[in-house]
């Protein structure tokens, strides 16, 4: 145990010196203003059209209901709209604006949309060359000829990876809040947000619904996003152990994650797709009560599936890494 800490230190600094984390911050600093601007335009547009948020909500509900009467819309989409109608009605009846424009709402929306694709992408930027990078630069030999057990080396890399995942998510939150606050104002921390909608088919069970202050909601959301990101990190590490080149490792991971996003939009009827990890990444949608990609999925189910994937990834990475022959 005593020599683990220096190893972690070494790995953490190695990643820092590769400047990947700065790239991530840079990407965030470029993208968030763009999304903020888009949101602001939308808010301005709505302000012109509606007298207040209630009218906007009422119109949104009516639009969803009209979509329900159309025969051209597939049944799964109708189900989504039925659920949305019930949720929005709940907000309306309790006189709470679900999308009051402020920096916290923006942060919430951004995190919710980022969790399936954007955050995993950032994680891959760090995690994909964890081992394969050492291999392609040849430093893996130096690393493994030191009198340290191999599992300790991999573990130290894993801890460093988790460090950076946490930092990435916290930085995303901070940058989101700081940048969007310039336009929307920095308030909204105490605004109530409803959570606990339970979805049974097309019906929403509101018996468990309770209001949560916005800050706590953000924290819960970030926690769930973090869990998803850590699982993606574990899988990225596994692929990085198995595959020799960093490029191949990034492409493999990206392909599976994108496939998952596409599947969750297209494969509502293919039941077993729910065991694929990338279909389960959007844990945050359970918090806001959005319908799951495949009927019958629950938060516990998704967390369980992700945990099993993570565990398998861990076993494979450690199993292979400790036994692997290092050749050129």
């Amino acid at each position, binding site marked *: 145990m005593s020599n683990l800490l220096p190893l*972690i*230190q070494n790995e*953490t*600094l190695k990643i*820092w010196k590769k400047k990947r984390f700065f790239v991530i911050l840079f990407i965030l600093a470029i993208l968030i203003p763009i999304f903020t601007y888009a949101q602001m335009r939308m808010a301005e547009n709505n302000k012109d059209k*509606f*007298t*207040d948020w*209630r*009218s906007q*909500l*009422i*119109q949104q*509900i*009516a639009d969803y*209901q*009209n979509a329900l*009467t*159309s025969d051209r819309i597939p049944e799964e989409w109708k189900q989504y709209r039925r659920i949305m109608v019930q949720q929005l*009605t709940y907000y*309306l*009846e*309790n*006189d*709470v604006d679900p999308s009051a424009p402020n920096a916290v709402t923006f942060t919430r929306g951004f995190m919710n949309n980022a969790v399936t694709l954007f955050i995993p992408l950032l994680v891959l930027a760090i995690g994909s060359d964890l081992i394969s990078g050492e291999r392609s630069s040849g430093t893996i030999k130096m690393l493994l000829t030191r009198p340290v057990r191999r599992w300790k080396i991999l573990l130290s890399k894993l801890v460093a990876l*988790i*460090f*950076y995942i*946490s*930092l990435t*998510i*916290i930085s995303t939150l901070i940058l989101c809040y700081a940048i969007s606050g310039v336009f929307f104002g920095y308030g909204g921390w105490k605004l*109530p947000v*409803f*959570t*606990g909608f339970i979805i049974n088919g097309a019906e929403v069970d509101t*018996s*468990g*619904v*309770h*209001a*949560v202050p916005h800050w*706590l909601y953000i*924290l*819960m*959301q*970030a*926690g*769930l996003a*973090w*869990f998803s990101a850590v699982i993606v990190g574990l899988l990225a590490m596994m692929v990085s152990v198995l595959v020799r080149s960093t490029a191949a490792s990034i492409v493999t991971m990206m392909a599976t994650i994108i496939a998952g996003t596409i599947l969750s939009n297209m494969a509502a009827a293919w039941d077993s797709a729910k065991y694929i990890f990338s279909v389960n990444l959007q*844990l945050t949608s*359970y*918090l806001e009560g959005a319908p799951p990609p495949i009927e019958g999925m629950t*938060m*516990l189910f998704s*967390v369980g599936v992700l945990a099993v994937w993570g565990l398998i990834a861990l076993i494979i990475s450690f199993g292979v890494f400790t036994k692997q022959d290092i050749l050129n």
Partner: protein
Amino acid sequence: MNKRSRGGAILWRTIASAAVLASLLLLFGFAYAVSDILRPPALVLGTEPPLAGQQPQLGAKEELKIVAIGDSLTKGTGDATGEGYVRRVVAGLSQKLGNRVKLVNNVAINGLRTDQLIDKLQQDAGMQYALKQADLILFTIGGNDLSKLAQTALRTDSGTADFGAEEIGNQLSDGLGRLDQVFQLVNRANPDARVVYVGLYNPFYPIPELRSGSLQVQKWNDKAYELSFSYPNMKLVPIFDLFEDEAGTYLASDRFHPNSEGYAHIAERIVQMLH
């Protein structure tokens, strides 16, 4: 060398402590979220006082607020421009009256029947809220009730004609009973607003076998006028004559809803009678 390693140590401490802190925070958030979803706290909303539900005041009418409710006619179905009669009324009125006219909400829903509208008027908080804000309420309803009647008529045409007529008569008076209820509910939701009920027309006039449906439509309009007469703020705007045309000039391609020209004429009539 020594200096560099010290710099490294400081960097390491900063990163590590920030990262550990962040990890713990996020782990807490994750655990809280999972437990919150699995075991929602017993304390539910009802115990808290509802949030300040400030009702915006009607205010001086420097701005005329319009709310539209009802069926596909109000929705504007069939209008290729998407304007419907509602948006045209908004434009026409602002031109005629010279003040600001704003469409607060158009909550019309395709295929709505009187019974469904009654449900909504009684239970839908959103609709109540929208109606309360309105200075002018535009609405259509009953078309879908009557077209259901027309289908019954078609089916019973070949069979016993007497039964068909009686059945139709019953359904018509049922529908009118519900219309009465709709009028009451709209009036109760906002007694101060001007209300415009757009009368029905016979979309099947171009079909010779169904032309006589116009007589039923007229019975509906006649009774609707009678019902609306008791409310001083409520007016019925007749439009049936626009569609009594063999070629169906003002009908959309679905041969049921008005086309954009038809909607333009409906809007014209409404604008004409409002001062």
